[in-house]
C-alpha cells in the first residue's frame, strides 16, 4: 500500500453463524483510506456498513468471523500491520489509541453509572501512564476541545445529566483523547437534531484538522456525505459497488445503484425541478442473494450478463465501480 494510505481493506469477507448455517454479511469489501482524509461509507440499513466498522475494530460479535481478506493498517510508528494476523491482546492495544470508534447512539453508548470524567479519563488510565491529577487535567482540556461548557464542572456529571449532543461530544472526547490516527464514526449524528448534527460535524472537521487523523464516516445520509467526505465508498448488500472522490461520485456517477440512491433523495446535487425517483423493490436478504450482481434484480440497466460475477473495476483514475457498464448518465 502506498505511503499516504492509513488503512487498506482488501477482499474482506465476514460471515455470521446462526440457525445452524453461515451467512455472508460482507462479500469482498475493498477500500482504502488516505492519511488525514475522510472516507464515507454509504449504504442502506443492512448493507454491511456497521459490520465493516466492527470488523476493523476487532469487535465482531462472537457468532461473526472474518472468513477472508486483509486489513493492512499503518501504525503511527510507520510499520504496516496486518490486523487479521494480530492476537487479541495486540488488537486491544490498538483500540482507542490507534483507532477509535464513536457510535450512533449517544444515549446508550456511555455507561450510566460512571461520571463522564471517569469514562474519558479511563482512556488515559488504560493507554498512557500518568497520575490521577494529570489525567484529570488532560480530560478537562479534552472536554474544552470538544466545546463542552464548564468542562471542569461537567467532569463529575453523569451521562443522564447531559443532552444527546453533549453526550456525543463526550463520546468524541473519549475517542480522541489518545490521539488516534483513525477515527471510525458509525452514524454519529443520526440520532441528533439537525442543528446539533451540524455542530457535531463542524466539531469533527475541526478536530480532524487539529489532530490530522483519518476518518471512516459511516452514514446513510448523502447530505452528510457531501459535507464531510473526501472519498466515498457505496455499499450494497454486503459489498462495495462504487468508490470515488466525493466530486466524482456526485458528478460522474458510474454505478446504477449510486445513481438510484442520489435520485431518490433531495439534495444540492440535484437539478431544480427533478422529481424524486425511488429505487424499485427492496434489498434482498443476505442469505438469498441473486447470482452475479446483487443489485441486478432492481436495476433498470440489467442485462443477462449481470448474472455473472462482477468485480470492482477502474472506470476512471481513482474511480472504481462494480458494474459491467462503463457508466450511467448523471442523475
Amino acid at each position: 500500500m502506498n505511503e499516504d494510505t492509513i488503512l487498506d481493506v482488501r477482499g474482506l469477507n465476514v460471515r455470521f453463524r446462526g440457525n445452524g448455517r453461515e451467512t455472508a454479511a460482507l462479500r469482498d469489501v475493498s477500500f482504502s483510506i488516505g492519511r488525514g482524509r475522510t472516507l464515507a461509507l454509504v449504504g442502506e440499513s443492512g448493507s454491511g456498513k456497521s459490520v465493516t466498522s466492527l470488523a476493523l475494530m476487532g469487535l465482531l460479535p462472537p457468532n461473526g468471523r472474518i472468513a477472508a481478506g486483509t486489513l493492512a493498517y499503518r501504525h503511527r510508528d510507520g510499520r504496516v500491520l496486518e490486523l487479521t494476523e494480530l492476537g487479541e491482546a495486540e488488537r486491544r492495544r490498538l483500540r482507542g489509541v490507534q483507532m477509535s470508534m464513536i457510535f450512533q447512539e449517544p444515549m446508550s453508548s456511555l455507561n450510566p453509572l460512571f461520571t463522564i470524567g471517569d469514562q474519558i479519563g479511563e482512556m488515559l488510565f488504560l493507554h498512557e501512564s500518568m497520575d490521577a491529577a494529570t489525567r484529570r487535567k488532560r480530560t478537562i482540556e479534552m472536554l474544552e476541545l470538544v466545546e463542552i461548557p464548564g468542562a471542569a464542572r461537567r467532569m463529575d456529571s453523569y451521562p443522564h445529566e447531559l443532552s444527546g449532543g453533549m453526550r456525543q461530544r463526550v463520546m468524541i472526547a473519549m475517542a480522541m483523547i489518545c490521539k488516534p490516527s483513525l477515527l471510525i464514526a458509525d452514524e454519529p449524528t443520526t440520532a441528533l437534531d439537525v442543528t446539533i448534527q451540524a455542530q457535531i460535524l463542524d466539531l469533527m472537521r475541526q478536530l480532524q484538522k487539529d489532530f490530522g487523523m483519518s476518518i471512516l464516516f459511516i452514514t446513510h445520509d448523502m447530505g452528510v456525505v457531501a459535507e464531510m467526505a473526501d472519498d466515498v465508498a457505496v455499499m450494497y448488500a454486503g459489498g462495495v459497488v462504487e468508490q470515488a472522490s466525493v466530486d466524482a461520485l456526485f458528478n460522474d456517477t458510474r454505478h446504477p445503484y449510486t445513481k438510484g440512491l442520489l435520485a431518490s433523495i433531495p439534495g444540492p446535487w440535484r437539478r431544480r425541478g427533478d422529481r424524486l425517483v425511488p429505487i424499485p423493490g427492496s434489498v434482498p436478504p443476505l442469505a438469498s442473494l441473486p447470482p452475479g450482481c446483487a443489485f441486478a434484480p432492481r436495476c433498470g440497466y440489467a442485462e443477462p450478463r449481470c448474472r455473472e460475477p462482477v468485480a470492482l473495476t477502474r472506470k476512471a483514475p481513482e474511480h472504481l465501480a462494480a458494474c459491467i457498464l462503463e457508466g450511467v448518465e448523471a442523475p
Partner: protein
Amino acid sequence: MTNYLIRRFMGMVVVTFLVLTIAFVLVRLAPGDPAALMLGPDATPQDVMDLRASLGLDQPIFVQYLTFVANAAQGDLGRSLFFDNSVTSVLAARAEPTVFLSLFSLIFALVIATPIGIYAAYRRGSALDQSAVTTAMLAASVPSFLTGLIFQRYLATELGWFPASGYGGPDAGFLDRMWHLVLPSITLGIVNSALILRFTRASMLDILGENYVRTARAKGMSERRVVLRHALKNAGIPIITVVGLTFALLVAGAVVTERVFNLPGLGSLVVNAVLRRDYPVIQGTLIVVAILYVFINLLTDLLYLVIDKRVRY
C-alpha cells in the same frame, strides 16, 4: 433525601403498627383460653379467673390492645407462657444461631452464585452455562430438609467432617458454635444460591448486550475489566434486589434448617412455641422478623442510591 428518609421511617412505623395489630388479632383468634391452657386441666375456675386478671385478659379487648401496643413500643413484648422469662430475653437468647446461620448462608450463596452467574452469562450457551443453569434448577427444587439429611448422613455421620447436629452444648466456645453452623449454612445457602445465580446470569446477559459494553470494548480494555467494572456494576441493582428478597426465604428456611440440625435458634423456638401455644413468643417472633424485613428492604433501597446516581428519592 432527608425527606425520603423521614418518609421511609414513617412507613416503617406504620408497617410495625400493622404487624403488631395482626399479631394481636391472630393470637386472639386462636381457639382456647391462654390462662386455662397455662394452668392445665386441673385448675379451678377461680385459679383461671385470677390468672386472667393478672395477665389483663379480663380487660375489654380494646384496652388489652392499647396496653399491648404501648408495651411493645417500649420493647416489652410480654412474658413467655412456657419459659419463666420475658419474650425479649427469650428471643435474645435464641438469636445468635439464627443470625449467623442467615449471614453465613447468604455469604455462601453470594460467593458461589455471583461468580458462576457472571461467568455463565459471559459464556452463554457453553457447557458450563448449561450445567450451571441445570444445577441451579435442581438445587432450587430439592427441599432443604432433604439436602440437610443427605449432608448429615454423608458429610457428618459417615465421613465425620462436620458435626451432625446441635450447637455444641452449653460450654461450647464461639468457634465451636460457628463450626456447628457450617452444614446448616450450606444447606440453607444452596437454595438461595440457585435463585441468586439465575438472577445474576439474567441481569448480566441483559447488560452484556448494552451499547456501553461495546463502547468499553472499543476503548481497548481487557475483557476482565469490561465485565467486572463496566458490566457488573450495572448488573448490581437487580442482584441486590434479589439478595434482599431472599432474606424472606432465609427466615422461612431457617425454621426448617434449624429443625433438621437441631439448632437452638429462633426457627426452632417458634416451632416449639406453636406446639406449646406460647402465644406471646409467637407474637414476639413475628414482630421481630417483620421489622427486620422492613429494615432490610430500606437498606436495599439505600444501596440503589449508592450505586446508581440516576435513582432519586
